[in-house]
């Protein structure tokens, strides 16, 4: 899709051979056990990346993340996963740098989508990216002490490197972490803390990237500023930001000149906690990433670890029924998410809560089913490595209605059949009928927030955002997993790349999901009684190696990069656990999309990306 001639070549081995020919000294195979791809000399990184994009056709940078190999090779490593938008497997390439003064050339000129991911790697891992124009902390605040994802960095409540902690298991003694901390809370200060020179620079640094050339202190009397330039802060407390997201907007009159997303207000340290947890332990944490679609998150993580597990000896892949149930859950989740997204997009357009109430009415039905199956409405924690933890129940009993405390009792298959064949299609048609032709909605959305296809690819946009720009890229088709290959559905795609199309594509996707679900129902009937989970393993023995599992989550491509470095007997914890969060990376293009629009459109554009902060900030 780029202007350059795309080689119809997605075979990774052939691609690597071409690269080796071209850069004989700069490229080595990654020969570590369980690893794949190539290691690129960091001085040649930009050239190699350009060749990968232009000559080999891997035009889409999916994920870029750092790993700290303290004690294993004593270096830091950046891992890049590039894909072709024509489909096919990844080309994985890596660059290494020593831990002291870590520095790697920035790939932002090759893929602008690397912007936030490199800032994250700088923030959490302490890798400097030479050539990055705006390299500052992204999730934590400027002035924070250290880079927390380094293996030798310890949090205030640090107890031990790996769970289960000796103090709790097998004895079961529990004490509050506050009691072990002098301050009684989750804080630790460096020994050389000097309160007299303490300076909170976290705010000032935000404005320093606005291209103003002045710091906040002298905004008042500066000659550099034009009189009508105005900086508006939106968030982190704002009714329309879908959570604690903040945008600093620089306005000329009412027109947006530049926009800087500020995040990290919900940075809950998933990755650090995930590296202390055991593999299985992380499953419930994935629920809390994109908390509207927890089933999808479970699926991605299960796929990543299963990739590793399948290298081992004792591995039973999920049964057919387990796969069918997974797809059932994930597609229901997609519907929940898109209904939610549409409802709250309308909220952002000013239709305060009425459309949202209608949109999320059917969600409750789906959540009832989740609750009956997994035990929780939102945080399902349902999938396991090698299946799902429990079959769907025979009957659904719901006591959730407060008004008339009656127990409703349904046969599950009847319930699902009614839901999928009648209720959900009716709900979509209702939204379609009321919203699609609305004059106001069209005026507010058509042509607003345009994202051209080349830019969508370059910015690593994913999911509905990418497909509404005319790029038919859906991981379910491009790099198939589970039983999607045998299911009949179309990849929804729209071509105008504006808010209106992003709204329409969500309706399309709900309809496609319903189509998939209709095919799943007979499969469930057919496999009734089949096992859904192989032999139970509480601490699965995960072989050495790395894996990148990705799924098409409702918000876009969700990827998990997992490294297992412990041997079979050692602690069973991921050495690295990274989440490629679609909400986070989709935001990279926000500034571009908003430029030139009015300030009232910002909120609508943000709503059309459909972010969720649990995933953005992790």
């Amino acid at each position, binding site marked *: 899709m780029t202007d350059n001639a795309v080689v119809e070549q997605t075979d990774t081995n052939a691609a690597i051979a071409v690269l080796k020919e071209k850069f004989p000294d700069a490229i080595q195979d990654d020969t570590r056990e369980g690893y794949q791809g190539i290691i690129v000399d960091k001085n040649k990184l930009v050239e190699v990346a350009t060749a990968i994009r232009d000559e080999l056709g891997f035009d889409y940078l999916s994920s870029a993340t750092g790993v700290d190999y303290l004690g294993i090779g004593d270096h830091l490593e950046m891992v890049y996963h590039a894909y072709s938008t024509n489909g096919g497997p990844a080309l994985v390439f890596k660059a290494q740098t020593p831990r002291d003064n870590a520095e790697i050339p920035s790939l932002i000129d090759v893929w602008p989508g690397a912007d936030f991911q490199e800032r994250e790697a700088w923030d959490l891992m302490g890798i400097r990216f030479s050539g990055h124009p705006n390299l500052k902390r992204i999730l934590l605040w400027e002035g924070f002490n250290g880079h927390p994802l380094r293996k030798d960095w310890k949090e205030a409540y640090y107890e031990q490197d790996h769970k289960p902690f000796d103090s709790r298991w097998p004895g079961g003694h529990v004490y509050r972490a506050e009691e*072990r901390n002098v301050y009684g809370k989750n804080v630790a200060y460096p020994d050389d803390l000097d309160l007299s020179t303490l300076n909170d620079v976290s705010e000032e640094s935000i404005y320093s990237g606005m291209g103003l050339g002045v710091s906040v202190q002298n905004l008042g009397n500066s000659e550099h500023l034009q009189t009508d330039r105005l900086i508006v802060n939106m968030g982190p407390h704002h009714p329309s930001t879908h959570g*604690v997201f903040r945008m600093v907007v620089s306005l000329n009159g009412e027109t947006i000149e530049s926009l800087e997303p500020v995040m990290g207000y*919900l940075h809950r340290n998933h990755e650090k906690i995930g590296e202390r947890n055991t593999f299985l332990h992380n499953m419930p944490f994935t629920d809390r990433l994109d908390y509207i679609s927890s089933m999808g998150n479970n699926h991605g993580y299960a796929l990543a670890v299963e990739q590793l597990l399948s290298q081992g000896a004792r591995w039973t892949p999920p049964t057919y029924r387990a796969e069918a149930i997974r797809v059932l859950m994930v597609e229901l989740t997609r519907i929940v998410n898109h209904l939610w997204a549409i409802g709250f997009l309308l909220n952002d357009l000013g239709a305060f809560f009425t459309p949202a109430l209608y949109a999320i009415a059917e969600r409750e039905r789906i959540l009832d089913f989740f609750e009956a199956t997994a035990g929780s409405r939102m945080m399902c924690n349902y999938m396991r490595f090698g299946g799902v933890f429990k079959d769907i129940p025979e009957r659904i009993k719901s006591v959730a209605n407060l008004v008339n405390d009656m127990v409703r009792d349904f046969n599950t298959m009847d319930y699902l059949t009614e839901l999928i064949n009648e209720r959900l299609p009716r709900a979509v048609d209702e939204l379609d009928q009321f919203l699609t032709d609305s004059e106001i909605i069209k005026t507010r959305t058509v042509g607003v927030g345009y994202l051209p296809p080349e830019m969508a690819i370059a910015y690593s946009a994913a999911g509905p955002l990418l497909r509404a720009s005319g790029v038919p890229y859906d991981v379910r088709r491009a790099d198939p997993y589970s039983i999607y290959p045998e299911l009949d559905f179309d990849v929804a795609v729209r071509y105008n790349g504006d808010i209106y199309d992003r709204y329409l594509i969500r309706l399309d996707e709900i309809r496609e999901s319903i189509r998939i679900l209709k095919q799943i129902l007979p499969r469930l009937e057919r496999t009734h009684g089949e096992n859904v989970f192989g032999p139970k393993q509480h601490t699965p023995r995960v072989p050495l190696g790395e894996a990148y599992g990705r799924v098409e989550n409702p918000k876009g491509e969700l990827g998990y990069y997992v490294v297992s470095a412990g041997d079979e007997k050692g602690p069973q914890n991921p050495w690295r656990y990274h989440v490629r969060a679609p909400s986070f990376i989709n935001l990279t293009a926000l500034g571009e999309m908003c430029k030139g629009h009015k300030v009232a459109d910002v909120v609508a554009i943000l709503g059309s990306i459909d972010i969720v902060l649990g995933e953005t900030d992790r």
Partner: protein
Amino acid sequence: MSELDLRELNNTEFPIPADMQGNVAITSLSKLYNWSRRSSLWPMLFGLACCAIEMIATAAARYDFSRFGMEVMRASPRQSDLMIVSGTVTKKMVVPIVRLYNQMPEPKYVLAMGACASGGGPFKEGYNVVSGIDKYLPVDVYVPGCPPTPQALIYGMIALQKKIDGQSLANMDDVPWYGVGPAEPAPVPILGPDIIDPRQMDLIRRQAEMAAAGKTFAIRNLPEPIKVEKAAPKAAAAKAAVAATDDPAKAERLRKREEALARKRAAQGQNAPAAEPAGEAPTPAQAAPVAEAAPAEQGGKPKFDKEAMMAKIRAKKANKG
């Protein structure tokens, strides 16, 4: 006491003539005042994390907390009475939260929704997570759950209404906002190398001096983690299993020894010092309910006996029937 219903209004200590009943009501000012406040609790439209989704679901058509007089969610702190802290409080976010709280007019209440807001929740150990909003703000109601179901949230809000019912205009401690002047604002934390609570400045300074002098500084005796013997290694277990098949007498001996060990462990567990209360930290008692609920004697619990448990359950069921 809780409700101000018609029956109560008509049957007061002061007899109301029959022909005026239903037209004249007598009640105390406090009750009237509380009734009007409890029935128009306006929460702030303010979501933090996953719990916010359940909060929206609670406001939506199915659960609909407007039935209890809480329907008007206000985006501006100036117009709201209740801050529902719905989600994980991070260090970066606690600064705006405290500011928002300070901007709310009195009377104001805080409801900590979910495990995260109450005590840190699943992310407690994270480096950017505040272990409960009560480390910075006074909390009126804690709602447990991850996330709490909509029912639980409504229950929490009803609990808050009950609390309001119990406040009396005659008691200045209950209604301090009619007292001398506006309340002191909660101190806004500072983002330094780590988050700094201005109330702890002194402590931090002393600590830094001690560190400079190369001493460690402790404000309280830290409880020693209980040393527990690791479970019998796998090899031994396997051996025991083999023994069981080979030699019943030996297996019996092994079992007895196990039991004795278990008893000994249990006794040790009980003697261990219980966790001390939270000390100087400005922590209301309710923080981290989970942690307090787990006493030390769990240390040496005898082995789980499935048979006995099943028998118990069966007995219970039989009793019910």
